[in-house]
């Protein structure tokens, strides 16, 4: 299998008042073979963001589309731990590491 790696990007505070926007952003891009979820510019996240991210990951998994999440903010990284979801996503601090991970899966 070979194909394009698409990026979904959100920034700022991912919280309850942006629920709809977050849900809309977390949809599989047309024709994507893999998705980089770039949340490196997120400054704060709450369980609304986590719930939507999890939903997105489950959808991608069902369609066998690999997904890598970039999280740099400590608060967000801890939130994932606190929610007990550290094993639910492939999380990277570095965008290049995330891309390398996806590349391996798209062009094995």
């Amino acid at each position, binding site marked *: 299998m070979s194909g394009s790696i698409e990026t979904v990007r959100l920034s700022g*505070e991912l*919280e*309850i*008042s942006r*629920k709809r926007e977050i849900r809309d952003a977390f949809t599989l891009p047309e024709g994507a073979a893999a998705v980089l979820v770039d949340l490196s510019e997120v400054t*704060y996240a*709450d*369980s*609304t963001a*986590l*719930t939507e991210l*999890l*939903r997105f990951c*489950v959808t991608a998994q069902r369609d066998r589309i690999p997904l890598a999440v970039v999280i740099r903010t*400590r*608060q967000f990284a*801890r*939130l994932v*731990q*606190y*929610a*007990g*979801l550290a094993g639910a996503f492939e999380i990277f601090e570095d965008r290049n590491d995330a891309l390398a991970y996806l590349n391996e899966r798209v062009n094995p």
Partner: protein
Amino acid sequence: MNVAPRLRLRCPAQSRSVAPIRHALRAFLEAIGFDGKCVDDVTTAAGEALANAVEHAYPSDAGPASYVELHARIARGKLAVDVSDRGSFIQRERLPGRGFGLRIIRAVTPQIRIDTANGTNVRMRFHLPKS
């Protein structure tokens, strides 16, 4: 008279209230010398409790009497943060893939009590940072 630092905030129970209340709490914590992870953890927990009040406490057509309140203060060597509303707590089974709010609150908060007698009052107690 009690002169300990204190923040008390009451806002309409709307989702757009949550971020400003969180920002106010963060500002207060910084003013009284909290920093880094402590500030993050307390605001994370409070943010979840606030989101719950806004999302679950009131029927969606609730009027101006629907509000959410945050009360933070130093008391007996702890930071006490209470988030309360005057709605009704909705008891329910945890559904898979959601219900992370209370789990997150419990993970970060050393001491917590949830009072549901008169609306919901999430009473959180945190250690003070070592100085």
